[in-house]
C-alpha cells in the first residue's frame, strides 16, 4: 500500500486572544489517499475549517501556535517557509471556499483571475497560453460559451456559475489534493446537485484526493468514502462513510443524525435535538468535551465522562472505525434506544 497523500498527525492549533488561549484544534490525526474523499463534519467552531486551513499553511505563524505534523506528498507543512508554501498552494493543494462571490475579486475578469492562478505556477507560460487554459477549464466545469464568459466579471455569473469558476480555478494546476470548505452551502439544491456531480466527475478524472468540509450530512453521505466527525476541536468518530452513518458509535454523531429530518424517512421519526450549545474553546469541558450535552453518560460508571478524556480508538465494529467514547457497548445502545426513535422504519427493515 502506498503512503497516503495527506497525513495529519497530532495537529494542534491554538490562537492566543485577549480572553485566553483558544484551543481550536487538539491532537487531530487523519489521512487521505489519492482518489479518496474524506468528509469532515461538525458544528461551527468544531475546528473543521481551522484544521484544513493549516494544511495550506494559511494561519499567521506569528500568532497561531501550530504543533504536530502535516505531510503533503511526503513534505512537512508545519513550520514551512512562506515561499515554499506558495509553491505548494494551488499546485499540490487547492481550496474551494463557501462564498464564491467573496472569494473572487470583483474588479478583475473571471478569465484573468483563472489565468493568474495558472501563471503563478507556470512562469514560463505566455499570457495567451494562460487564457487558453482558463477557457479550457471553464469548459471543463460546464460553463456554456466559455470563450465568451471568460471575459465576464464575477457579478455577471450566477451563484452556481461562480462556484464552478472557483472549482475551475482550484483545478487549473491539477492539484493532487482539493479541499472544499462548504462548497455548496450557499446554493440551491438543484445547483448543489450539479456541483456535487461535477466534483465527483473531476475527482475521477484527475484522481485527486478530496476533503469535503460541511455540516450537511446528506452531502457527506453522497460524497464521502470516509467520515471524520469533529467536536470541540477533536476528532470524535472516524471511519468508512457507511459505517459511521448507519452504525455510528459516538453519541454526538447520534445527535447529529437525530437532529436532521430525512426527506425520504418515516414521518413518525422524531426530531431529537442535542441540548445546549457547542462548547467554548477557551475553556473546554473537562473529560469528554461532549459530556455536558450527552444524554448517555448515565450509562457510564462513576464520573468517568467528566473526568477522563476517552481515547479515539477502534470500536466494536472493527479496526477501521474509531470512536472517542466511554460507553462499553455503544452499538447496542444505538440500536435499542436511539434508532427506534429517530428511524423506526429502518428497524423494521433489519
Amino acid at each position, binding site marked *: 500500500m502506498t503512503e497516503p497523500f495527506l497525513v495529519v498527525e497530532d495537529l494542534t492549533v491554538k490562537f492566543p486572544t485577549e480572553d485566553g488561549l483558544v484551543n481550536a484544534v487538539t491532537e487531530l490525526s487523519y489521512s487521505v489517499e489519492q482518489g479518496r474523499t474524506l468528509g469532515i463534519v461538525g458544528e461551527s467552531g468544531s475546528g473543521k475549517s481551522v484544521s484544513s486551513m493549516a494544511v495550506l499553511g494559511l494561519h499567521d505563524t506569528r500568532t497561531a501556535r501550530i504543533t504536530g505534523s502535516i505531510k503533503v506528498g511526503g513534505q512537512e507543512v508545519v513550520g514551512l517557509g512562506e515561499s515554499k508554501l506558495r509553491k505548494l498552494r494551488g499546485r499540490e493543494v487547492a481550496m474551494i471556499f463557501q462564498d464564491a462571490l467573496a472569494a473572487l475579486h470583483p474588479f478583475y475578469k473571471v478569465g484573468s483571475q483563472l489565468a493568474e492562478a495558472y501563471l503563478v505556477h507556470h512562469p514560463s507560460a505566455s499570457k495567451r497560453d494562460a487564457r487558453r487554459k482558463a477557457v479550457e477549464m471553464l469548459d471543463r466545469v460546464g460553463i456554456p460559451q466559455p470563450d465568451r464568459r471568460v471575459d465576464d466579471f464575477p457579478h455577471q455569473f450566477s451563484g452556481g456559475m461562480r462556484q464552478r469558476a472557483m472549482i475551475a480555478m482550484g483545478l487549473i494546476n491539477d492539484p493532487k489534493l482539493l479541499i472544499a470548505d462548504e462548497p455548496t452551502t450557499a446554493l440551491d439544491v*438543484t*445547483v448543489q*446537485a450539479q456541483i456535487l456531480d461535477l466534483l465527483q466527475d473531476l475527482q475521477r478524472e484527475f484522481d485527486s484526493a478530496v476533503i469535503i468540509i460541511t455540516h450537511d450530512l446528506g452531502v457527506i*453521505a453522497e460524497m464521502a468514502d470516509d467520515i471524520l466527525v469533529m467536536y470541540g476541536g477533536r476528532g470524535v468518530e472516524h471511519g468508512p462513510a457507511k459505517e459511521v452513518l448507519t452504525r455510528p458509535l459516538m453519541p454526538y454523531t447520534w445527535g447529529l443524525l437525530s*437532529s*436532521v*429530518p430525512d426527506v425520504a424517512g418515516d414521518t413518525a421519526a422524531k426530531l431529537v435535538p442535542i441540548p445546549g*450549545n457547542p462548547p467554548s474553546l477557551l475553556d473546554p469541558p473537562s473529560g469528554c468535551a461532549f459530556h455536558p450535552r450527552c*444524554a*448517555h453518560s448515565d450509562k457510564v460508571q462513576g464520573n468517568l465522562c467528566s473526568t477522563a478524556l476517552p481515547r479515539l480508538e477502534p470500536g466494536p465494529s472493527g479496526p477501521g472505525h474509531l470512536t472517542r467514547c466511554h460507553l462499553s457497548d455503544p452499538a447496542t445502545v444505538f440500536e435499542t434506544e436511539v434508532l427506534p426513535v429517530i428511524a423506526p422504519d429502518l428497524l423494521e427493515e433489519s
Partner: protein
Amino acid sequence: MTDVNHPPQQPENPAVTEGEELSADNREQRLSFADLADSGHAAAQLRTDVEPVLTVEDLKMWFPVKSSGLVRRTIGHVQAVDGISFQVPRGGSLGLVGESGCGKSTTGRLITRLYTPTAGSMRFGEKQVDLATMSNRELKPIRRDVQMIFQDPYTSLNPRHTVGAIIGAPLEVHKVVPKNKVLPRVQELLEIVGLNPEHYNRYPNEFSGGQRQRIGIARALTLNPKLLVADEPVSALDVSIQAQVINLLQELQAEFDIAFLFIAHDLAVVRHFCPEVAVMYLGKIVEIADRDSIYGHAHHPYTQALLSAVPDIKSAGHGRRERIRLEGDVPSPINPPSGCRFRTRCPLAQEICAKVEPPLLQIGPRHKVACHFAGEIGRHPATPVTAGLLGVDKQGSPDPGTTPQPVGTNPGYDKEWFDLGSQQMVSA
C-alpha cells in the same frame, strides 16, 4: 392563548429548553436519552376539518424596472409573484419551497404587507378582511395577528437594544398592556421560548445564534399572532440547534394554535414541519398538495427534479443516485418564457407547453399540479392531459370541437377533481 393576566405558563418540555441554559453550575443535572426523545416531535399531521385563516387568490407582485437616465420610464416588470392562490388552515402550516428567486420570500412579505401587492386578494381571519387593499392605518390592528420570523438572527435584532426592549416593543407600539405590565409579559415570553427570564437586560450579542432565533420568535409571539410567516427560520443555524428551534416552533404551534406559512429551501425540514406544501417556480405555484402527495407521488417534473436533487443520508456507501439533472439556471423573471415557465428546463416539454399555460389542476383530494403532462416519475402521459379541459388540441392550438372549462380558480380544494387515469371528473 396566553393572557397577560395569567401567570406565566411553563414551557411544555423543560428538557430541551433547559438544555440551552446549561452552564457550569448545572452541568451535574443529567438528561437521559428517553427524556430527550419524549421532548422530540414527529412530523406534524394534517388537519382537514379546520377553516382557513388565510386565503390568497391570484396574488401578483410586479416590481417595475426603470430605465436609466433623467426620465426614468418603466421599461419592464420583474414578475416576482404572478398569480398564486393558496390557503393556510387555522393552526396548520403550509410550506413554501422553491429555488432562490422563485418568489417565495416575496410572498411572505406580501402577506405581512411589507409590500403592497400589484393585484389579487389575501383574505385573513374570521372576518375575511382583505389584507391586499387595506391602508396602513387599517392594517395596524391586523399586524398583531400576522407576525414574521426572519432568517438571520444576527441582522434581525437591533444590537443596541436590550432583549427586553426588543420583545417589549410590539407591546408598546400597540398599547396592549400598561407600561408596568410590559416587563412581566417579556419575562413570560422569554420563558416560553426557553430562555432565562432574568436575561431581559442583556444585549443580543450576549446570546448564541440559536438563542437569538428564540428571541426573534419571542418577539413574533408577543402579540398572540394567529399567523406566523417564518422565512427560512432555521437555515442560518447549526444542525443540532436547528432541531431545537423546529421542536420549539412545533410546541408553540400546538399550544397557541398558530398557523404558519413556512418558507424554506430545505425540503426535509419542510416535510417535517408542514403537512401541506406548495412548490414555486418563477413566481408561480407549480404543485401544491399534502405531504404524501408531494414527497411520495409528485406529478410535476420540477418537483420531481427538486426532490431528486436532495442529498439523502441513507445513500451512504451507495454512491450518488441517478438524478434528474436540470440544465442551466432559472430564466429571468423580467421576461419569463411563454406558456409554462418551466418548459425551458423541462425534460418533457412539447409544443403545447410554449403556447398554453398549464392551469393548476386538481388531480386528487388534496393535490393540484400545473403541468400538461402531469404524472408520476417515469409515467408521464404522452399526450397532454389538459387539452380537453382547455379547449385546445395536442399541439396547443385552439380546437373548435371542444369547449374550454374553468380550471384552477378555487384557492382551496374542491370536492370533485380531475382523475388523470380516467380523464374524468371524480369525487371521493
